[in-house]
Each structure stands twice: as structure tokens, then as C-alpha cells.
């Protein structure tokens, strides 16, 4: 049932006014009586044994209330992949070794920030330096020292995928090409730096307010690292200024805040600075990607061999998932009769790479889509035609992995071709101007239970009241993407009441129902949305009998929930207001509140995701062949996100994705020297500004995803992938320069055109 007034409407964020007027509270806005300020001492060297730590001078400084090192902690290793305990390779504070510049060594809590920082500088650490490895090639070379003793040659994990007859596929192919692509690490650059505040609670319990995407995961891992029962830890997420994957793990300051709050009996707050975030924060995986692909002379895909080394930095973080997804997206979008993937996650002495918007897909798709464009060029087939020839369709199966339950990919290609004026612009080329295409597919949440939760993947509790309002409780985590609004829309549509009638309590692990795995992998709308629908349907089951009983309706009647009313569809006069209906139900229950629990866990949905989005994007660019500067004039996007719940939110995701994809393609890059990040401000770590943003035209392809709430699937993440390959193809079309290693900088363009010496 679709309620067009709510589903598909462009409803502004319900928290927009609070945010733009500065009233919205973020973690760092909180101050509690007696609160201490935390600071972290980080490793200044990339790889070393810790010989000695002396904190006596720091402890003696006036105003310092606590100093902790790894030796003081329970030393419990943690990591998101609880299902594979060997993958949990981090300690809350370094013990024996440091593995990257920025590795957390000690923490201080003091009466003010200045004292905490000064105390950090008084901690003496003696290091015995070990060889540092700053590329996957170096750390995997024969005889390299191990960054983690448990790993084999610094490879922390390998993932293989294989189906079809690869050798036969290449043997029968008329055209085979092999290329190596290089993609780089970039920053999430969320606007709110990480902040965490912990307060001790009665009975040895602790409460943590934190800027996170995953309150439930933080609760569980914090409890295990502190040695507390899970429910002694309460995690509350306030407003969170973005995450993009960078806030989806237990982080060390979260541990330190809680640990020191328990030790001192006082609240402790840590807030990172932008320089900390850029110098030592999580980032997207850089990778060399070797891809070999074969086609028939007519352009049909025959086989693909995809080999990737993920530069994981010093710890696994979310690398295992990125390794899996990279392999999946190496062969998405098109029908590959034979495919082989080998992905290896490699340790280096750099800040750990983690989850970041797209989660392995932007890298895999830059390589795959660029190679598609190269093949089209060589085969003399238009790049969009070549894609149409091979495109996936609804019902396609990826052997043993997934079935595509809805797919608007071909329609996206046809639409983007038409709206961008592709055929004319491709043919009638103007000097310096080019037009290119890139495509994407993405998951709507993951199926694989790497966190090994015993609860449902998403849950919701709905309470309805006799004043006609409802209360939605969910652990689903709005970090700025707007799920607090979208989930209320879903509940409103299901119960037939106004969005403004719904109170929401979200992301408080002591109050909201267990569990929800958090915001990542574009899972929230589909998974939490389904949980809300299920809870709402249970509420309706409680209310429907009231209408039948009161009006003595024949059982063939169907009951509608619309416009704050509950009534017979055939006899709309037989019914009453939503509130009155709840009132009558409440009477019958002798005062027991109407409350229902809903949940969602994907079952029988293969290995990857219950649903996949698709889309195609075209970039129009202009290249100054003397300076190498690239201007993106316009982006055209046609995409299939199922039924959009909130069109304005989908549009916002598209704009944000283009912005992030543009930075990835053209200007964002960490400047590194011997493991040290040199650009630690937004002046020198260049994200695109509003003034760099090209105008954008987009259209949503009309599909219905049977597994999603009201037919919806993901819209927040996949769209970040097509931008870089589309721009790269545009640059090639404009100049003849083909970029295989991001970002596409002006010097690279000039070198590629032979106008600048390397």
C-alpha cells in the first residue's frame, strides 16, 4: 500500500530547524558537573616496540586526575568482526608495539584541555624503531617484518570468488585486455570531529554519549574491553555530524572516556581536532587493482579476473568487509559468465583504512567502469551500447551470491543517454570538451552477520496513544542522512497518521529495542524500515477488531488507516479517529498500553544483500590542455533506488555523492611521507567546495523492490561510485589522456599529454 501524500513526498528533515538555528545538541556541546577533559598521546613513529613508558611527570602535574597506558587496561582485543575473533587486532591502548604514526599510546584526564595536553607532552616513551612499510608492495615483500605477528606476510585476510570456466572464457574471447589501476586513500571529512563523553553510573555502570554510526556495536565492544556485562554500558547518540563509515567502530577515545570515568568517578570528555582526524583518522582503502577482461568481437563479456591488494594500514578495522565487497562489485552490473577474484587485505604502517561510503565499490567500480570504457573504445562500440549489451536485469543470479530482485539498470542507461544528449555530444566533439559515462550498483544493507549479533539486524517498537499520537523507538542511527525523518514517514504511511504525530526516540541502547547494527552499507531504510512496518502492522492488528466490533461489520470488510482515521474502506463512515480507536482498544485491554515490536533480519537472501540499487551517470567536462585543469560542467544521473520514500532526501544523497565523487576523482589526496600525513587541514586536504559543484540533473527510474518497505532500496552510497569513472572517461574523450590512477590532477593530465616532464 502506497500513501502518496507521505511515501515519495519531499518532506524536509524534521530536525532541520534545530540544526540550522544551532539548537541541535552534539556530543561536544554537553558539559556535566565535575567533567574532566581528555587528551590522547599518540605514537610519533610508524612502527616500533615500546621499551618504556614513564607517566610520573604527567601524573604530578597540577590539575591532572588520571593517566592511563595500555598496562592499566584489561587489554582485551576488539574489532567489528566478532564472528572471526582472530580478525580482532586492536587494543584500547598500545601494548608492546605501535604500528602507525598516531597509534594511541596513553590518555590523560585533567581539569581543563590545556592541562591534559601539557600532561601528554610530559609522558616519556622510549621506542625501539622497527622497519616501516608504507605501501602494500613493500609490506608484502619477502622477508618483511611482520606488523602483526599473527599475519602471514602481512596479509591479514584473503577473499576468493570463483564461478564459471575462466580459462575457457579467455580462450574463446576475441579481445582480452589487462590493466592495473591505482586508487588512493581519502578522508571521510565528516564535519563533526569525533567526540565522546562518559559518565559513571550507579552500580559500576557507565553511560557514553558519543558521535557514532553504531551505538549497539560500541555498547557491546566497550563492555567487552571494560570487562563489564553488556547492559552495564549505555550508549547514547546525540546529533551526529556525518560519518560516511568513519564512525562505525568502537574507537579508542570512547574506551578511554568510559575507562577513566569509572576510575575517577567523574565524567570525562574527549573531542578530536580536525588535525587529529586528518593525521590519524580512518580513511578509504587505497588499492592497486589488476583486472583482466575478455570480450567476444560483438562486445559480449566472456570472463574477468580481478586481483586486488587493499592497503589496510595498521589494523583490520572494517577492511574484511571492504575486501568482500570489492570482489562483489568487481563483477556487478553486467553478466559475467566466468569470474575470479582474489582480494588480499594487507597491513602497512599507516593510519588504518576502514569503511567509507561505498565500502570497496568506488575502488572496484573505478577500475571496472574505466576498463569498460577502454574496451568500448578498442572494440569501436559506443560505451553505453556496450553496457546495454551486457547489463544485468531483474531476476539475474550471481551464482551462490545473490538474486537481483529488482533492477532498473538498462532503463537508467537509456534515460541518461537521452537526458544528457549523449549521442550528439559524443559525435560532435568540441576541442577540450568531453563527455563520459560511469555506472554503479550497490547493496541495501549486508546479509553477512560478521558482528555475530544474537539479536535481529534491525528492530522497532511502536506505541500508540489515545491522543492520536505514536512513539517510535529504534536503535537506527541518524547521522545526518535523515533516517529519523524517513522512518517516521514509513510509520506515518503505515498507520495513516501525520508525520508530526510521531515522537521518535532513537539510538539509546538502554531504551530502544535490541538491536540495530547501525548506519552503514545503506541498510537503514530497508532494514529498519521493514522493522517499523512490521511493528506498525501488529498495532493495526490490535486496532482492526475494535472497528469490526463497534460497527458490527461483515468480515468481508477491509479496514483502512488514512488521514488520522481508522475505517471500513467500503463504508468510510463506519470508523473513527485514530485516537478514538486506540482509546477503545485500551478500554478493552483494561489499560494495558498498545505496544508492538517489529524486527527485520534478511533470510534466504544470498551472501551479500537483500536488494541492489543501480544507476548510470554522465559527466560533461572541459580540460584546459595548457594547465591541465579540469572543469566539470554538468552531471546527469539516472538511478534506480526502488520507490524513494523521501525524494528530497534522495536528491540530497545524490548531490552529496557527486560532491564526494568529484573530490575523489579530482583533488582529494593524502600527502604522505614515511608514514606521516602532511596535509592535516582543510586548506591542504582539498575537498571540493560548493563553488566546485557542477549543476546536476537527475531522474529516478520507476522500480519496486519487493524486499524493501514500500518498495524502497538504497540511495545513499552507491551513487558515490560512478562519478570518478565518468569524469575520467570525459577527460579521455576531451584530450585522449586516460587516467588509471586517481586522482586526475593537472600535472598528470599534462604528463599524459606529453606537455610536462615527470
Amino acid at each position, binding site marked *: 500500500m502506497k500513501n502518496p501524500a507521505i511515501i515519495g513526498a519531499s518532506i524536509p528533515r524534521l530536525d532541520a530547524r534545530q540544526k540550522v538555528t544551532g539548537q541541535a545538541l552534539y556530543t561536544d556541546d554537553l558539559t556535566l558537573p565535575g567533567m574532566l577533559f581528555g587528551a590522547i598521546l599518540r605514537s610519533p613513529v610508524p612502527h616500533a616496540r615500546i621499551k618504556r613508558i614513564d607517566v610520573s611527570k604527567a601524573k604530578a602535574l597540577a590539575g591532572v586526575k588520571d593517566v592511563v597506558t595500555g598496562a592499566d587496561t584489561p587489554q582485551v582485543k576488539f574489532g567489528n568482526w566478532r564472528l572471526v575473533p582472530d580478525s580482532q587486532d586492536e587494543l584500547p591502548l598500545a601494548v608492546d608495539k605501535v604500528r602507525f604514526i598516531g597509534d594511541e599510546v596513553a590518555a590523560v584526564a585533567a581539569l581543563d*584541555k*590545556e592541562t591534559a*595536553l*601539557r600532561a601528554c607532552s610530559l609522558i616519556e616513551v622510549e621506542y625501539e624503531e622497527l622497519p616501516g612499510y608504507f605501501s602494500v608492495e613493500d609490506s608484502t615483500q619477502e622477508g618483511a617484518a611482520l606488523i602483526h605477528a599473527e599475519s602471514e606476510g602481512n596479509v591479514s585476510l584473503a577473499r576468493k570468488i570463483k564461478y564459471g570456466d575462466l580459462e575457457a572464457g579467455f580462450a574463446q574471447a576475441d579481445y582480452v585486455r589487462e590493466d592495473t589501476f591505482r586508487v588512493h586513500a581519502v578522508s571521510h571529512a565528516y564535519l563533526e570531529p569525533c567526540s565522546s563523553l562518559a559518565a559513571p553510573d550507579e552500580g559500576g555502570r557507565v553511560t557514553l554519549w558519543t558521535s557514532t554510526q553504531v551505538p549497539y556495536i560500541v555498547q557491546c565492544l566497550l563492555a567487552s574491553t571494560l570487562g563489564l556485562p553488556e547492559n552495564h554500558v549505555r550508549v547514547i547518540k546525540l546529533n551526529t555530524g556525518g560519518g560516511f563509515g568513519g564512525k562505525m567502530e568502537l574507537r579508542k577515545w570512547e574506551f578511554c572516556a568510559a575507562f577513566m570515568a569509572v576510575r575517577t568517578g567523574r565524567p570525562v570528555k574527549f573531542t578530536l*581536532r580536525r588535525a587529529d582526524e586528518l593525521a590519524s583518522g580512518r580513511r578509504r582503502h587505497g588499492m592497486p587493482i589488476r583486472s583482466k577482461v575478455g570480450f567476444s568481437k560483438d562486445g559480449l563479456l566472456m570472463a574477468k579476473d580481478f586481483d586486488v591488494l587493499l592497503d589496510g594500514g595498521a589494523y583490520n578495522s572494517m577492511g574484511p568487509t571492504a575486501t568482500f565487497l570489492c570482489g562483489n562489485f568487481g563483477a556487478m552490473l553486467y553478466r559475467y559468465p566466468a569470474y575470479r577474484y582474489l582480494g588480499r587485505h594487507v597491513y602497512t604502517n599507516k593510519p588504518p583504512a576502514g569503511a567509507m561510503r561505498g565500502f570497496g565499490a568506488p575502488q572496484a567500480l573505478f577500475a571496472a567502469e574505466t576498463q569498460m570504457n577502454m574496451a568500448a573504445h578498442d572494440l569501436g562500440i559506443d560505451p553505453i551500447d556496450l553496457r546495454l549489451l551486457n547489463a544485468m536485469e531483474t531476476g539475474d543470479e550471481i551464482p551462490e551470491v545473490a538474486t537481483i530482485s529488482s533492477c532498473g539498470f538498462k532503463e537508467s542507461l537509456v534515460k541518461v543517454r537521452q537526458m544528457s544528449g549523449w549521442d550528439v555530444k559524443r559525435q560532435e566533439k568540441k576541442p577540450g570538451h568531453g563527455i563520459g559515462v560511469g555506472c554503479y550498483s550497490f547493496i541495501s544493507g549486508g546479509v553477512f552477520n560478521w558482528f555475530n549479533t544474537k539479536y535481529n539486524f534491525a528492530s522497532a517498537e511502536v506505541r500508540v496513544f489515545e491522543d492520536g499520537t505514536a512513539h517510535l523507538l529504534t536503535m537506527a542511527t541518524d547521522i545526518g542522512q535523515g533516517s529519523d525523518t524517513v522512518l517516521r514517514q514509513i510509520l506515518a504511511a503505515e498507520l495513516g497518521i501525520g508525520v508530526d504525530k510521531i515522537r521518535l526516540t532513537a539510538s539509546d541502547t538502554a531504551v530502544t529495542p535490541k538491536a540495530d547494527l547501525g548506519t552503514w552499507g545503506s541498510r537503514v531504510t530497508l532494514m529498519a524500515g521493514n522493522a517499523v512496518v512490521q511493528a506498525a502492522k501488529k498495532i493495526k492488528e490490535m486496532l482492526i477488531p475494535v472497528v469490526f466490533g463497534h460497527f458490527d461489520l461483515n468480515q468481508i470488510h477491509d479496514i483502512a488507516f488514512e488521514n488520522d482515521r481508522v475505517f471500513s474502506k467500503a463504508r468510510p463512515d463506519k470508523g473513527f479517529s485514530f485516537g478514538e480507536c486506540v482509546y477503545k482498544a485500551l478500554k478493552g485491554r483494561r489499560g494495558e498500553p498498545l505496544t508492538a515490536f517489529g524486527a527485520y533480519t534478511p533470510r534466504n537472501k544470498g551472501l551479500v544483500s537483500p536488494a541492489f540499487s543501480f544507476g548510470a551517470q554522465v559527466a560533461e567536462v572541459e580540460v584546459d590542455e*595548457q*594547465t591541465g*585543469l579540469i*572543469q566539470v560542467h554538468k552531471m546527469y544521473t539516472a538511478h534506480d533506488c526502488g520507490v524513494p520514500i523521501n525524494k528530497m532526501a534522495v536528491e540530497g544523497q545524490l548531490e552529496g555523492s557527486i560532491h564526494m565523487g568529484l573530490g575523489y576523482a579530482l*583533488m582529494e589526496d593524502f*600527502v604522505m611521507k614515511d608514514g606521516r600525513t*602532511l*596535509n592535516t587541514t582543510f*586548506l*591542504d586536504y*582539498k575537498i*571540493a*567546495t560548493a*563553488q*566546485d559543484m557542477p549543476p546536476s540533473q537527475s531522474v529516478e527510474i520507476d522500480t519496486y523492490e519487493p524486499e524493501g518497505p514500500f518498495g524502497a532500496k538504497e540511495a545513499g552510497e552507491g551513487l558515490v561510485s560512478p562519478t570518478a569513472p565518468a569524469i575520467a572517461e570525459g577527460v579521455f574523450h576531451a584530450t585522449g589522456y586516460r587516467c588509471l590512477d586517481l586522482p586526475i*590532477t*593537472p*600535472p598528470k593530465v*599534462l604528463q599524459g599529454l606529453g*606537455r*610536462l*616532464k615527470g
Partner: protein
Amino acid sequence: MATPHFTVHQPATLEEALDLLGRHRASVKLLAGGTDLIMKLRGGAMSADHLVSLNRVGGLNRINYQDEDGLVLGAGARISDVAAHPDVRKHYPALAHACSVMATTQIRNMGTVAGNLANAAPSADTAAPLLAYRGSVVLVERGGRRQVKLEEFFKGPGLTVLEPMEILEAIRVPVPPGRAGSSYLRLSARSQVDIAAVGVAGFLALDLDGCMMGVRLACASVAPTPVRCPEAEAMLEGQRPDPRLLARAAVACVRAARPIDDLRATANYRRAMVQVLAGRVLQKCLSMAQGGAQ
């Protein structure tokens, strides 16, 4: 970084400001827009117990053009005000352009042209056009005033001829001749809101025979200080404009550059871009002069 603590003094006259400088000479800095200074104090790159603000000193924010004396920019003249000033736009379009594209809206609204010069960053956007327009700076101390040509003002990154107790009071720029053209072009990785990786400014006038005179070329971000390009200027002076000659002069500009590799660009790329930008700047100057516009 720890929050720095300092006392801010807000004198109403230049004399008072000079007195305050003297009184707190052990640890004092001048504050104009503060867009560089406050960042350095916060980041710990600089420290001072006292800041003497020029923001309430009477008359310092003047922007004044007269046909005899040329342009005077007081030390307090904000970058955005200079960019918008009709006389600056009319007579010194390259300076107006530099002031409208540098940094960010917020920084342009607070920062001053004098501060941009006194800060002496190699990348100072206003320096190159002011060098092209033959600008000079008026420095004042308790003993008196002196006027220094801009090309003699810079000594190195962050270094100038300013004495510790001296204040940059004003910038003076002579009236450009008729049939003149000028231009400033800059490159950065991001289209806007960025520091220039390379900047080139030029000025030239045409005499009655159509020969080039008063040619000035200057570059920013390609040497320890903003620099003039004397060899290129000499090649063009008194000559008839000719595309091949202009191209050779653009090559000569590269020889004035002593760029380094840094976060923003490689030395190699900077050298190549000096040539490209100088060529474009000269073309623009010439067509402006020939068109008689401005």
C-alpha cells in the same frame, strides 16, 4: 592546541599604537584582520602576550584614488572593500581581481591588503599585481616615515624590511598611464577557496607608435618571495607587440622563478605554469591596452 592567552589593545591613533608597540616590545604583534595571525597563535606557530589592534585607529581603512597621486590603501583597508571599490576596479583591475578571488569570502571580509603584504607569504595574492603596478609601502615608526618600493619590501618567507617597532601605514600605487592593460591570473587545485599554487600579474602600456612601455611582470608562489621578472620586462620594453616575442618573454618569466616542491604543486609544474600564465597575462594586457579599455 591549547588556547592562547593575550591582551588586545585597541588604540584610537597611530601615535598610541606606536607607544603600545614600544611599551610591550618584549612580546607584541600587530593585529589588523587577524586572519593569519590568530591562526598562527592558535596553532602555536607564533606567540605574543600583547596584540595591538589597528582596527580602531582613525582613518586607517581609507581607500583613496586621485588622478595626480594615484591610489592610497590604508593599513586597515579590507580585501573585500578594495575588490569592490569603483576606482580600484577602473584603474587597477588586476588588483581588484586578485582581491576578489583570493582566500574565502569570510577571510576577504576581515583580512586587509596591508596584512597580506606584511605577512609576506610567498603566495600573497595582492603582492603580484601591486608589484606590476609599481606599488610601494609607507612605513611609520616613532622617529618618522619612510616609503619603500614593494620589490624591496620582501626579504623571504614571512620576512620583510619592517623593523620591530614599525607599522605598515599605507600602500601607495602610482596612476597608470593611458592605453594600459593589466591582468592577474592564478592557479590552484580547487577552483576557489584555495591558496594559489602559481600566480602571475602583468602590466603594460602602449606609446603613440604602439610600442610597449612600462612593462612589468610579477609572480607569486614560485620563489621565497613574490618576484618581478626583469629579464622578460626588458625583452618587451620599447618593442612592438608580436606573438613570438610575447611567447619568448613568457619563457623568460620562468627564469625569474625559483619554485619548490610542496603540498600544493611540484616545482616542475609551477615552472610550466609560470610560462602558460605569463603568456595569457601578456595577451590579456595587450588586448586591454589596444582596446583602449581602462
